């Protein structure tokens, strides 16, 4: 599969989960495991550009596909606009949920470029944060969207 633009080819057992493939085999530990039961979203990555929970995808299902992880968002030293917005809006405290939250948020803006606050809250329903109370996360996503918050 292609991970963050680089072709990666490793032999693994069919039962290897994508999240373990990324962390243990490809050495990309930015993607976290929270619940391991597809509830928390900490393990969210992009599969062909769409947010998925990598604890509930087999690595073989991503064979020949494009994966983007949190490590693949920034352009060198320049943060992705979503990362920059999280930074500026203080949208993280412990940071555990953050990689998954940012990947889900980027996927959301691909589908709904000018979301309302309600769109953001609903669009991030698959991601849990135990620290922030979500307020600043929602503000960060709205800032990154750069729209008028009017919807779509």
């Amino acid at each position, binding site marked *: 599969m292609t991970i963050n633009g680089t072709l990666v080819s490793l032999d693994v*057992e*069919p*039962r*290897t*989960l994508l999240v*373990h493939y990324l962390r243990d085999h490809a050495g990309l530990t930015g993607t976290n495991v929270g619940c*391991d*039961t*597809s*509830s928390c*979203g900490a393990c*969210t990555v992009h*599969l062909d550009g*769409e*947010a*998925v*929970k990598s604890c*509930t*995808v*087999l690595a*073989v*299902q991503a064979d020949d596909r494009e994966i983007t992880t949190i490590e693949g968002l920034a352009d060198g030293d320049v943060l992705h606009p979503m990362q920059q917005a999280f930074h500026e809006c203080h949208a993280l405290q412990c940071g555990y949920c953050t990689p998954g939250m940012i990947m*889900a948020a980027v*996927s*959301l803006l691909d*589908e709904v470029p000018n979301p309302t606050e309600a769109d953001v*809250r*609903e*669009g991030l*329903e*698959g*991601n849990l944060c135990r620290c922030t109370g979500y307020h600043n996360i929602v503000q960060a996503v709205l800032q990154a969207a750069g729209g008028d918050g009017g919807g779509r």
Partner: protein
Amino acid sequence: MIPAAFDYVRAESAGHALELLAEHGDEAKLLAGGHSLIPLMKFRLAAPAVVVDIGRITELSYVRDAGDHLAIGALTRHRDIEISELVGTQAGLLAAATSKVGDPQVRHRGTIGGALAHGDPASDIPAALLALRATMVVEGPDGQREVSSDDFFTGFLETTIGEQDLLTEIRVPKVPDAGWSFQKFNRRAQDWAIVGAAVLVNGGSCGVGLVNMDSRPVRAAGVESAIAGGADAADAAASAADGLEPPADLNAGVEYRQHLARVLTRRGLEEAGA
């Protein structure tokens, strides 16, 4: 949690999937979106020896206008149904129910066929398809057969799909002018329904499918005949839980679920214009 070891094969077409099922028999399990099967395998509640991945059979991923009904490929993902204009205008109830499934990540992976084949009474999709009177197309060793949604669900996590069968298409009657409502009661946004009601009102008749109100997905037949007989929403909804045996769990006991079924059915009927 890691699934037990298995052999993996990828089916290139519907025909290839049927061949692989015939070859591996009851050792094999189909993998579509994997959002029911992979969690079961991680908990080791399922441990198939062979996993046949049908997730890339693009020929079974479509929404088509087929005259009086929509033809939806079994491998169509929830997300594609949720945003399909055809589904939205011709069977809005299905689009609404689908948009309530899990969260965006789940809807990017899960398929309509997987949700039906899994046969979970807690799933939102079967209730909508029961209300819409959909028909499932199943292919097996003896060819193709059509199964009405009423005959499709046979027990807890059981359907008429046999070990060598593949669900290929779902046929949903087009009802552009019908009123509808999908009522899902849960405590947190991404959760499964504690109880849900899918309501379709089409002229003087209606369809009501219930979520989590029995061991299998069911219709509230009493409500439907009451509406057909001229009852108003409140009177008709009073019989929503009659004859059903909902589960009791941490979220709700039997009586509370029966209460929810009546309230959600009434709200659904009212919203749908009964």
